[in-house]
């Protein structure tokens, strides 16, 4: 249980969400590498083994392709599996099953078969884990029709997005930025009505729309605060759902502010930021008062040393500079 009032962490919020889901529906089970005895590599599932037992908290071998595929099969067979792939980096080993089976089966079968599966994984850089452990492939997954892709960035969303994801009849991939697990805060109650359709304005503003998701949300909110001190009123839009994108919310914000800066931890080329940029141009071109700016990761595998990793990733000062630039300041 949580200690002081609603004070909790992103990690605990996720754990609570898992408990709720497991208690509410016997078809729900969790599997993944070290989710049981070890307690989850990010400790999300710590303690769950004791309550739910080895049948429902299943430790898997390091066989990503097989256990993700097995999750797909179990969903097809009527269960509601939550598959934790330790990190997005390892999900590449399971990509075939996710993209070629989970995302396609409903369509290929002419709508006969459903894969009501939730796949969770940690994502992102920022911990000096070097090139192979620092990927942000949300944009890749968001490229694939048949998948729904979520990026909870707040404690409320960590608490609230799992239930609608499990209730969804199609495969849902949830990205948890690894830097968010320790995020502390209070649950607002908003989580009870969390949807998996819409973006949310996290800060109202009039002069520039800062559009982002996941781990970059907090850097962006910091930037918005600093911009306010400079007399620039920035709006911060948290996409939350990366596929399908809430284009209406993006366009509405840009129509209001006439300027957009997109912050995305993916590499710039072919990024989700590129897609958002394209949608703005397609649907709000005549509302734009400045070129759209993107703050993305530099085109380099993430280097190990901190100063180089920091330089490679979107950071608050870069966001501020981009926002000022689109305002001609």
């Amino acid at each position, binding site marked *: 249980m949580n200690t002081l009032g609603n004070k909790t962490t992103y990690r605990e919020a996720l754990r609570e969400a898992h408990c709720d889901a497991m208690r509410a529906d016997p078809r729900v089970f969790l599997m993944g590498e070290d989710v049981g005895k070890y307690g989850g590599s990010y400790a999300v599932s710590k303690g769950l083994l004791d309550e739910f037992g080895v049948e429902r908290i299943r430790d898997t071998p*390091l066989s990503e392709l097989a256990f993700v595929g097995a999750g797909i099969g179990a969903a097809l067979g009527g269960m509601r599996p939550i598959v934790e792939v330790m990190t997005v980096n390892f999900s590449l080993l399971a990509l075939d099953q996710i993209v070629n089976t989970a995302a396609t089966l409903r369509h290929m079968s002419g709508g006969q078969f459903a894969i009501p599966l939730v796949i969770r994984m940690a994502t992102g850089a920022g911990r000096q*884990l*070097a090139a192979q452990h620092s990927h942000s492939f949300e944009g890749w997954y968001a490229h694939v029709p048949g998948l729904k892709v979520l990026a909870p960035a707040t404690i409320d969303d960590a608490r609230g997005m799992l239930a609608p994801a499990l209730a969804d009849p199609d495969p849902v991939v949830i990205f948890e930025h690894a830097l968010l697990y320790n995020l502390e805060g209070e649950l607002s109650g908003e989580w009870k009505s969390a949807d998996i359709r819409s973006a949310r304005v996290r800060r109202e503003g009039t002069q520039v729309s800062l559009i982002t998701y996941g781990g970059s949300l907090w850097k962006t909110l910091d930037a918005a605060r600093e911009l306010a001190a400079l007399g620039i009123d920035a709006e911060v839009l948290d996409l939350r759902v990366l596929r399908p994108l809430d284009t209406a919310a993006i366009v509405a914000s840009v129509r209001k502010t006439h300027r957009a800066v997109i912050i995305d931890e993916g590499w710039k080329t072919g990024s989700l930021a590129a897609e958002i940029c394209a949608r703005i141009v397609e649907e709000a071109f005549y509302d734009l008062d400045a070129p759209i700016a993107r703050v993305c990761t530099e085109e380099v595998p993430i280097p190990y040393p901190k100063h180089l990793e920091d330089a490679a990733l979107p950071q608050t000062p870069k966001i501020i500079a981009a926002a000022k630039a689109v305002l001609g300041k």
Partner: protein
Amino acid sequence: MSDVIPLKPVTLPRELALTLLTDMVRIRRFEEACAQLYGEGKIRGFLHLYIGEEAVAVGAIHALTTQDAVVATYREHGHALTRGISANAIMAEMYGKCTGCSHGRGGSMHLFDAATRFYGGNAIVGGGLPLATGLALSEKLKQKQIVTACFFGEGAMAEGAFHESLNLAALWQLPVAFFCENNLYAMGTALARSESQTDLCAKAAAYHLPTLRADGMDVVAVHDAARTACAAVRETGGPYFVEFQTYRFRAHSMFDAELYRDKTEVEEWKKRGPIHNLTNRLKAQNWLTEDEFLAIDAEAEREVRAAVAFAEESPWEPIATLTQDVYAAP
């Protein structure tokens, strides 16, 4: 009955035995320093220590020639040191300095060195196996009798990459020595909870590889097994599989509550510590005095201190070159 392990005589030449001991001590001292430096924030990211498993890298790599290639995992400091990459270059890499063996870009999990044919440093479990298979393919195509030694943990044997690589190496008869470091836990999952067939040699044998099993806590046994394997690979041109049964004394990474194993189990294994084990045997056959051991230890300490000083003094790479080495320089 006694708890004391009977002291098997060391059958290797004394000089080699002392070299093996020295390298194990070097690794131990180096990694102890790393653990400390990690605590100080000098080393960041993941740090997977090899403490307890030193006999495997040392025994096996000393069975290789300088022509041979090494492919390792993310727990590879010991392999790199034994292979001959300088402690300075490794420590600087751990610091992320540009004098590191990977110019600071890789860190602990990604040690690389072309001069010693050390191909990393792979942080994706099982990722090194196909790579090693390919390196061996190139040797076969060049008609060289060169061994590619591929180290991996038993956890990797659950990955498809293991099965596909062993099948390919056996099918095409590629000169790979597959060295499995079985430390009983795939991160936190015990072997019996991750493998339907816990006889790892039987798994490899299913792909028609000759196999050996060796006590990975005994550097002499490791060395013998590795020499047998490497000789066979050179002779037949085909692959070989060796399981080294070992144990890591420390956590999987620096953060690990070790909920998955008993402290008493760890203590039991520590009694069989490889340095300990060899030292006692060498002393028993009068090949080593305590003073000689202390001298080896002191030299190792000196080497590590020098490496730390080197890393401390080394420069950081300027941010201006952030995007270099993504492609070949034009």
